[in-house]
């Protein structure tokens, strides 16, 4: 993919992806709004700048791999895939409908471009480790496996089993990205099941840890570049994001974790996104 987009253009792309997310979720009538919106900048950066990928050849064997471990945020991945040209954008509104390739949680066998099936949490990192080990056996370098995880997902034991293993085998072509938005279904992560000190936990498991503003395009791109240059150990990027980012009434509110906007809420959200929070006038007004 040509990587010619400027930071401003990438930010514009992220806004378009957020608009798609709102429309998809409104149409579906159910789904996860907050995480999907919060991850829009990361997914835009990945598909439009960071990943080596060919949208028209999703099985290209030189591609980087992106695993979405917290599969409930898949609206952001569907939107990014469609905007990147993997499939027609018109298909996005079939999300969660009978017969759609866009299942409520991602199914690899249904839609080209998806690298795994997820939803049940905690399973992405160990798949990434398996992929990285296979690449090592085949002496493949210069391919990376990115795995996006939720922070609530880190409650799962499987994550830490995988973290131990990746540390043991020093799987430096695994790059973990944690969506640190501090919410999960039952409330704030630190009251449901405290994760802190998250940074030190990962370090103790043998990982190099980076922390960034996960809604800052430049920081996302720079962190991934730095992560690729670290060859001694696996790297995890704790990306601090704002759940519901871009839509004022959703931001920071854990009630939007597993909820979709209704017609009125969607209209309000789209207007806010199109006017860049009132800074410009929407052509739809």
């Amino acid at each position, binding site marked *: 993919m040509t990587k010619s987009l400027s930071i401003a253009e990438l930010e514009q792309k992220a806004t378009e992806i957020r608009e798609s997310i709102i429309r998809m979720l409104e149409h579906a009538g159910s789904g996860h709004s907050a995480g999907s919106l919060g991850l829009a900048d990361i997914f835009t950066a990945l598909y439009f700048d960071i990943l080596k990928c060919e949208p028209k050849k999703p099985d290209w064997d030189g591609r980087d791999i992106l695993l979405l471990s917290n599969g409930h945020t898949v609206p952001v991945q569907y939107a990014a895939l469609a905007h990147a040209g993997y499939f027609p954008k018109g298909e996005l509104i079939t999300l969660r409908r009978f017969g759609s390739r866009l299942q409520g949680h991602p199914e690899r066998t249904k839609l080209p471009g998806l690298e795994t*099936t997820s939803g049940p949490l905690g*399973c992405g990192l160990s798949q990434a480790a*398996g992929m990285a*080990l*296979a690449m090592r056996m085949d002496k493949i370098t210069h391919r990376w496996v990115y795995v996006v995880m939720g922070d609530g997902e880190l409650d799962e034991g499987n994550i830490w089993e995988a973290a131990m*293993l990746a540390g043991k*085998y020093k799987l430096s072509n695994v790059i973990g990205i944690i969506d640190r938005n501090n919410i999960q279904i039952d409330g704030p992560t630190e009251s449901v099941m405290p994760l802190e000190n998250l940074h030190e936990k990962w370090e103790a498991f043998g990982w190099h840890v980076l922390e960034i503003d996960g809604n800052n395009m430049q920081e996302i791109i720079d962190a991934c570049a730095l992560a690729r240059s670290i060859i001694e150990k696996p790297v995890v990027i704790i990306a601090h994001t704002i759940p519901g980012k871009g839509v004022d009434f959703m931001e920071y509110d854990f009630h939007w974790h597993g909820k979709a906007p209704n017609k009125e809420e969607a209209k309000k959200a789209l207007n806010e996104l199109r006017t860049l929070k009132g800074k410009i006038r929407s052509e739809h007004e």
Partner: protein
Amino acid sequence: MRELHLVKDVLAKDIVLEANRKGFGRGLLAIGKINENIVAACADLTESTQIHLFAEAFPERFIEVGVAEQNLATLGSGLSAMGKIPFISSYAAFSPGRNWEQIRTTICLNDRPVKIVGAHAGLYTGADGATHQVLEDIALMRALPNMAVIVPGDSVEAEKAVAAMANDHRPNYLRLTREPTPVLTTSKTPFEIGKAYVYAEGKDLTVISTGVMTYQAMVAAEHLFKEGIDLEVIHVPTIKPLDSLTILHSVHKTKKVITVEEHQINGGLGGAVAELLAEEFPVPVKRIGVRDKFGQSGKPDELLEHYGLTSKHIMAQARKMVK
């Protein structure tokens, strides 16, 4: 009938005994030499699952995951995604016992042909007791779409099963036994995933058995023949997909069935056969297996006796049904 090249005399005092896990270990080493895409991972049980033979020969293709069965399954999915053919081994109580959901989502639904090897299944695990004598693994795996479930009858068949699994494009589950058991088959005996084999022809009643219990069924058939009861014995090393044709062909003739397995009677071979016959050809079926109980410590012979899984129990049941 196809020539099956079984051992000549199942009642021989000097019948060869070998644990079928040994056959698995040999088979994996052999196929590993031919196919470099074969890789293996284990959860801290390399020697008892016999995967150490492969690990020692191909250390660069072996991954030790430690005592972490969820990671074992999901790592396997990742290896498979890159074109590897991963055999992942642990005790069946833990894999697929503990990691069932990972197997369901990242292997079966995700359509990654990972080869799950569950050792030390069933009552033959003996002294370790109920925690380790898993009697529910066939049911767990049989319920999953996409999964083939293989329960070899002896070490020679287990060895062949490994080669067949390496060439099968589905996820597979291979159930293994700890203790040495009689070897009934020879290198010439056929094995295909999805095929059942008529080990003894008879007309009065069909005994359908799986795994190491087929030996008990064959012994029962030999003894009952002398009493004038003619058992047909079908060995079913693949419980899913079930070889319905072979079973129905036999049952059309005998119209009576006993199933035998070292597993709960619910959800295993007995369940599969009862489901098939209820839909296609309802006849009297009696399931021999563990009847909704857990195991306990003891010698395998003591346990088979206690739970009613010996050739004597098969004979008693057959006499009741044939008379």
